[in-house]
């Protein structure tokens, strides 16, 4: 059943390819703005790179979260999803997995490319890729709770950011920390382990919270 939900969302996203591209372009543009704002000194750019790339990934995923449930909510298919004979958190997991593939994976793939703007070494780019690979599921998982809570509310987009960004802080700290560790030559292992641990915690709690949020919003 899970693969059908993911398959359905992938078809839907494929039919509206522009949405995927818009999120990726937003990410690339935000990251490229910083050198323009701060100046081209490579030493400075290298030190801010981890934070810039991670914050840009956070904001880009915030953009696409609004649509996670909203389209299904408007055309009534979300109600039907609540009535499937499978536990609701499986449905949520399917939606989150689909959202991760559609909105987050492109960011992870393009991040090393964008990292080159900040004169990062190959090793650092690789750690950046791994940290985003580990971190972005957290963004989708915790984000799905925010999307579920703010379903159908006016000003939903901004509201999601206020609710969810504080909860992203550990992911940001460990993720950006891992990249920064490699820049200063320290092993990024502890950061990545902690990031992985936080990912597992979110994997456990977020679907339950998101399905509770959906039940409440659809009452």
């Amino acid at each position, binding site marked *: *059943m899970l693969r*059908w*939900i993911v*398959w*359905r969302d992938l*078809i*839907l996203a494929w*039919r*509206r390819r522009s949405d995927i591209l818009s999120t990726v372009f937003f990410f690339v543009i935000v990251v490229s703005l910083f050198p323009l704002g701060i100046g081209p000194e490579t030493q400075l750019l290298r030190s801010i790179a981890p934070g810039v790339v991670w914050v840009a990934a956070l904001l880009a995923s915030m953009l696409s979260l609004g649509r996670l449930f909203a*389209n299904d909510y*408007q*055309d*009534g*298919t979300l*109600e*039907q*999803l*609540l*009535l*499937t*004979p*499978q*536990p609701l958190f499986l*449905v949520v997991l399917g939606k989150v997995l689909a959202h991760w593939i559609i909105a987050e994976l492109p960011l992870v793939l393009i991040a090393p490319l964008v990292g080159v703007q900040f004169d990062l070494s190959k090793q650092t780019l690789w750690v950046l890729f791994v940290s985003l690979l580990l971190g972005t599921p957290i963004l989708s998982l915790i984000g799905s709770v925010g999307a579920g809570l703010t379903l159908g509310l006016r000003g939903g987009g901004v509201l999601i950011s206020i609710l969810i960004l504080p909860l992203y802080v550990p992911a940001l700290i460990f993720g950006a920390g891992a990249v920064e560790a490699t820049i200063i030559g320290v092993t990024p292992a502890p950061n990545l382990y902690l990031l992985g641990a936080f990912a597992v915690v979110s994997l456990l709690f977020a679907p339950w919270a998101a399905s509770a949020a959906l039940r409440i919003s*659809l*009452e």
Partner: protein
Amino acid sequence: MRGDRRLFRGLDLSLSPGTYVQLTGPNGSGKTSLLRILCRLLEPAEGEIRWEGANIRSLGEDYFTAVTYLGHRPGVKDELSALENLTIANAVNGVEVDTENASGALQTMGLAGRERLPARFLSEGQRRRVALARLLVSNTRLWLLDEVLTSLDKRAVGLVRSLIEEHLNRGGIAIVATHQELELSAGVTKRLELTT
């Protein structure tokens, strides 16, 4: 209850297989809320609902294998074609439907030739028929239909009537919120009037 206001109280009835309940009442009298309570989209403030003797809350997800609920919005994705909508909706429900009898169902609902058209080109009435086609393919025993006859032409209403009659003959139960009189030839007809 909606907000802090009680919609209805002291509702106590039991339905045997083959019953058709026509649910009527002015707007805001709680028809939709009753239907949503019956399919657990809404929790009742007090009281409980039993399906075959077991409280539906304790039945958990298995209860949904026996229920089909069609709400105000048809629940059809615009980007998907009518056929995809039907097959995927059922697959998500765990009922694998092959394309033949899916398009067969669409044809009986009068959508011949439009199966592969993305749903956004369909009219509201046609979209409603795609939703109703789900009734043909799913073998659930309890149908909860909320104002599904709106925007349907005469022929489509006739189609729905025959669908419900077959469903009742198979021992199913249908609770339909509508103001149109469906003189059913099969099963027992009950009327439930909700007043404000």
